[in-house]
């Protein structure tokens, strides 16, 4: 049981990092990003390839993951900066699918649908599996803490205030002399970098990545987690990720107890419970569990 809890908290930490990254792009800057699993995948592949085939030390691999994802984010931001939110949602969704398909087809680079196995992990093999779990637990939550502190400070710094201004009204921000595109690109890069590092940690924890792991379902889960926690508030992102994991895993034990249904029906009920809980949460806490404090969002 302890091993299970530790492992799930590692997953929660990775989801929390993803939610934090998304929060910079979406929460602060107001750019909807439904392609977050794409940046996550770019980071995971970058670090996996560099540490496994080029034998880079792991911390360098993680840094490279952040960098690669940031680069992808910059390109994406320049392309989509002019688009309205709803267009942006669909274009970024398409971007993630492109990343997944390229990973599946460009075998020379990514090993295709076979995926990359045997990705090194810190002291993996030298310590017991449970010790490895605990080491990684510390590592992931340290990363969450660092990202949280940095992003929370940033969001209250002038940079964050400009981003919010851009989110609330782009034209006003532009008239006020802020280079809107430059701010958007930087925010996109920063968020994508956090997503990329999350991807790298995921790759090194599971020791294996494959295109199928980067399906839209993960994006959906993280977006729902952030919405549930509270878009814009960094604490909301972390809380949302924990809540998501509680839902994903808790429903297992609930579904197990439902009598008289087939296994498929149990699986269906489990996913349905997750969906309904999130809808209910949005219904009764539309601003999320932790609403953003700095300023209430204007309702259009």
């Amino acid at each position: 049981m302890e091993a299970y809890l530790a492992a799930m908290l590692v997953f929660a930490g990775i989801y929390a990092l993803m939610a934090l990254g998304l929060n910079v792009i979406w929460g602060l800057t107001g750019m909807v990003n439904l392609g977050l699993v794409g940046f996550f995948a770019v980071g995971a592949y970058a670090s996996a390839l560099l540490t496994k085939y080029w034998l880079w030390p792991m911390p360098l691999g993680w840094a490279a993951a952040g960098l690669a994802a940031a680069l992808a984010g910059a390109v994406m931001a320049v392309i989509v900066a002019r688009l309205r939110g709803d267009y942006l949602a669909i274009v970024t969704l398409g971007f993630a699918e492109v990343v997944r398909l390229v990973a599946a087809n460009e075998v020379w680079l990514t090993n295709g649908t076979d995926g990359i196995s045997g990705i090194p992990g810190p002291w993996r093999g030298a310590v017991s599996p449970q010790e490895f779990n605990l080491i990684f637990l510390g590592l992931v939550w340290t990363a969450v803490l660092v990202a949280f502190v940095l992003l929370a400070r940033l969001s209250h710094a002038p940079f964050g205030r400009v981003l919010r201004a851009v989110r609330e009204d782009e034209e006003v921000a532009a008239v006020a002399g802020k280079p809107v595109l430059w701010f958007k690109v930087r925010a996109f890069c920063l968020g994508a970098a956090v997503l990329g590092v999350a991807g790298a940690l995921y790759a090194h924890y599971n020791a294996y990545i494959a295109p199928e792991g980067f399906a839209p379902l993960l994006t959906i889960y993280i977006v729902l987690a952030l919405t549930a926690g509270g878009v814009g508030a960094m604490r909301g992102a972390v809380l949302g990720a924990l809540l998501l994991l509680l839902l994903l895993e808790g429903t297992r034990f609930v579904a197990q107890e439902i009598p008289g249904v087939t296994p498929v029906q149990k699986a269906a009920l489990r996913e349905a419970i997750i969906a309904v809980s999130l809808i209910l949460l949005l219904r009764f806490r539309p601003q999320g569990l932790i609403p953003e404090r700095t300023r209430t969002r204007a309702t259009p």
Partner: protein
Amino acid sequence: MTRFRITRRAALLGATGAVTTFAIGGRAFGQAAPVVFGALPPLSGAGGPYGPAMLRAIQGVVEEANAAGGIRGRPIRVVAEDDQTNPDAGVRGARKLIDVDRVTALMGTWASAVTTAVAPLCWENRIPLFTVSGADSITLLPHQGFIFRTQPNSRLQIATGADFLIRQGARRIFHLAAQSPFAQSSQEVLTEKFRAVQGGAVAGYIVYERDKTAFRSEVDQVLRARVDTVFLNGYLPDVTILLRELFRAGFEGRRFTPAYAVNQTTFQTLPNEVTNGVMTWQPSPDVNSGAFRRLQTRFGNVEVDPYSAQTHDHATLAILAAAQAGDASGVAIRDHVRRIASGSGEVVDNVTDGLRLINAGRAVNFDGASGPLDFDERGDIQGTKFRYERAENGRFVLMEIT
């Protein structure tokens, strides 16, 4: 209307299966602690059409074993988690099975990505993993003997399939492959095999996106290549679409596909005139093996898909190995699988007979519903036979077993 009756029966069968998992255990076993096995089939996502039947086969074996007295007096319990055909969900499910339910064997993983993601957890926690995944890379992992794969590796499977086609007179073949870990290696084997015969050639090779809903342009390319045979290397949803499209286009050549891509469901979704003549192949036990027949009977006299045959064998192997070892730990099961699966012991084809003989102290050699189950040192099956069948009026007719 007949279609509905069949599906309703299948649904009823599923329902009884579900109820009985809760009923088994308990009765007749006194205080003995149950042996717990984990099942991790895809119940949603791309593997959804396969997972439920795979799980039903496992539950059927466990029921039968419990009725036969369990593993040396201990009842057996199966805990199932849905892997959602997604490595991320699969790993979380496996963690729960291993750490919370303390299962001593995992079985029934389907997608190669899920199996590869889950495998390290299994060998680190020293429990065996029985899988149906086809990617050749899986048994090459450093798994210390903990992986048993009942699906022949793709090179072996394609090589024997190609030999069969050449025997049937195929010379120009078109390879239509779903994006999967074995598309490329299949193509290499096919090219090699067809180049070796007079006038033989792989006249076309296309890898398509599996979850698309139309493949018209792909079929146009097949027609344009003027081939005598098309090899549909995909899965149920996409091969169903391709078969319909090939029929509409008037393709008259041979259609050859793995048995998991055309099964009972295909006969319910497509008219017979479309499926007639489709040839399939799958790993198989001997013609006179009882295991395959028994499984068919248990499934209600419908065709058994190869994956269910394999998970039936997963459960039987784990149970008999634990009984043989007198110990249901993961390491004991790993160490005894080969002893009950091959060798000179008495050949049995079901769990009841196997348990009876083992309890009587006799050596057994289990031949399953998916083949004789002789594993090599990497955990791949070897020396399996293949069963070739042709669809005729909504049934499969045996062509040959080699």
